[in-house]
């Protein structure tokens, strides 16, 4: 179970702007295990988005290194790396091109990476849409007519099209309302179980962490504060900062606890689909 998929070794990132030096990430060493949902939590400015950008190869690290499946990740990513590490963004409104159909957006990775034969890609797109709980004929629709939750499902389908090993989920549910959020989390949980995916789940919402994560790393001001399995962090937080974050979670009602259990199970579907 605990084979490392991604290892960060003393990873650092410093930004320089107008003569100011801002240390966004300060020498972080961390291991992500295959098949886990590893949550990165912290307030804004804690360095969690910087980790996402570095892992995706969107910016070069200032210091340190990363290994993916035991092999060093180059600054200029190969096509294989781009395919293996995917992203689901926070804002589903912006993540889909309003002037391209849902099908075109989901098909793009298939064309880029030459996945499958050209004429069966349409069927593949339909399959991916069904896998995320949308009907196949959504392919023809414009994202403009879709709800936030539906758009996020399309974005997830697009990430899945690459057949990735690791998906960086950057606050994937924070723009959605609570019930839709629960359904999307449920979907993510199911996909992880069925496809053996690994998630790097960035969030500021510890309630979401408790619902879906297997492991948590807490960040503050670019430093790793503590890391461990989700139960032990919540049961026995070591740092004052983590205790403070946990204290900020709203008290859980019985209803919410029930939703959470459903998400954890990852099974469909007392929550239904939207």
């Amino acid at each position, binding site marked *: 179970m605990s084979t490392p998929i991604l290892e960060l070794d003393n990873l650092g990132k410093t930004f320089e702007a107008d003569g100011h030096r801002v240390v966004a990430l300060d020498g972080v060493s961390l291991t992500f295990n295959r098949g886990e949902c590893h949550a990165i939590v912290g307030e804004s400015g804690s360095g969690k988005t910087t980790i996402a950008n570095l892992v*995706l190869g*969107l910016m070069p690290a200032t210091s340190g290194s990363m290994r993916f499946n035991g092999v060093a990740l180059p600054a200029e990513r190969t*096509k294989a790396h*781009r*395919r293996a*590490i*995917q*992203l689901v*963004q926070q*804002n589903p*409104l*912006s*993540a*889909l*091109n*309003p*002037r*391209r159909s849902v099908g075109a*957006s989901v098909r*793009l*990775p298939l064309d*880029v*990476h030459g996945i499958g034969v050209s004429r069966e890609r349409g069927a593949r797109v339909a399959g991916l849409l069904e896998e995320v709980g949308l009907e196949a004929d959504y392919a023809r629709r414009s994202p*403009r007519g879709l709800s936030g939750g539906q758009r996020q499902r399309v*974005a997830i389908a*697009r990430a899945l099209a*690459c057949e990735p090993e690791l998906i960086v989920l950057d606050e994937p549910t924070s723009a959605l309302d609570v019930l839709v959020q629960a359904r999307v989390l449920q979907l993510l949980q199911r996909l992880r179980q069925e496809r053996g995916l690994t998630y790097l789940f960035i969030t500021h919402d510890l309630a979401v962490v408790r619902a879906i994560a297997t492991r948590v790393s807490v960040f503050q001001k670019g430093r790793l504060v503590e890391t461990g399995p989700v139960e032990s962090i919540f049961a026995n937080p070591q740092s004052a900062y983590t205790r403070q974050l946990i204290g900020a979670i709203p008290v859980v009602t019985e209803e919410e606890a029930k939703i959470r259990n459903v998400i954890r199970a990852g099974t469909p579907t007392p929550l239904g689909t939207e």
Partner: protein
Amino acid sequence: MSEPGSPVIAKRSGSKAWQAYRSNPLSVAGLVIVAVIVFMAVFADYLTPFPEHVGPIGDFAAMNMGPSETYRLGTDTMGRDLFTRIIYGYQLSLIMAVVVLAIATPVGVIVGLVAGYKGGWTDYVLMRITDIFLAVPPLVLAMAIMGFLEPTLLNGMLAITAMWWPWYARLIYNVTRAEAQEGYVLAAETVGASTMHIIFREILPNCWPSILTKMTLDVGFVILMASSLSFLGLGVQPPTPDLGSMVAEGAKYMPDAWWLSVWPAIAILIIVLGFNLVGDGLREAFEAES
């Protein structure tokens, strides 16, 4: 028959846009004006009783006549029917506008897309070149170019094209800079799509509303610019009927033979107004759509 700036595009990307367009009477009026002018220009040969008046002929018995039964708008200094000269002038104006925009738009759009998406040195070099063109007053630049070249129709179009593309570069540069911040561009990048794909398949479709609106407005402005050049004697030469030259020629006979300048001037005003109304309507329609 093609109607530039017709709502076909708006219709395709949602009836909401077409409804917004239709709801404004001024936009509809603009569309009617443009449709009538395009119709007259295309079927000029059939609409005039004097198609030969387009050429260098003279009927000195009929020169400088005011509006009458035979010559509805009067005749010019060579005795040619002004109405005929004006609809052929429209034909020429529209051809010029289409040719100028057909060259200036793609050049400017590609410069703007590449500079806006690539950034860095590419951005710096391309946009500074654009700025140099933008820094010179358009009419002065066109006049300078025409000063070097023979005053022919082709050179006139080249001069106007040379001063027109930078405006598209600047516009599309700004749109691209904004679009590049959108998540769908990041998504295409993380998926591994090529720069060509991102620029032309992802960003360009989102530039179409801006491009179409500007092109429609510009048909009027290109015609105005061409008329200004020929008014100054730098554009199309006689006997080709050109609205700008007609105003210039007729000005010598003001106010006695007022019809010589006044009708072509009104003709310019109507065509520029028509395309401006359509352009404004399109802009509002695209805003309503998004």
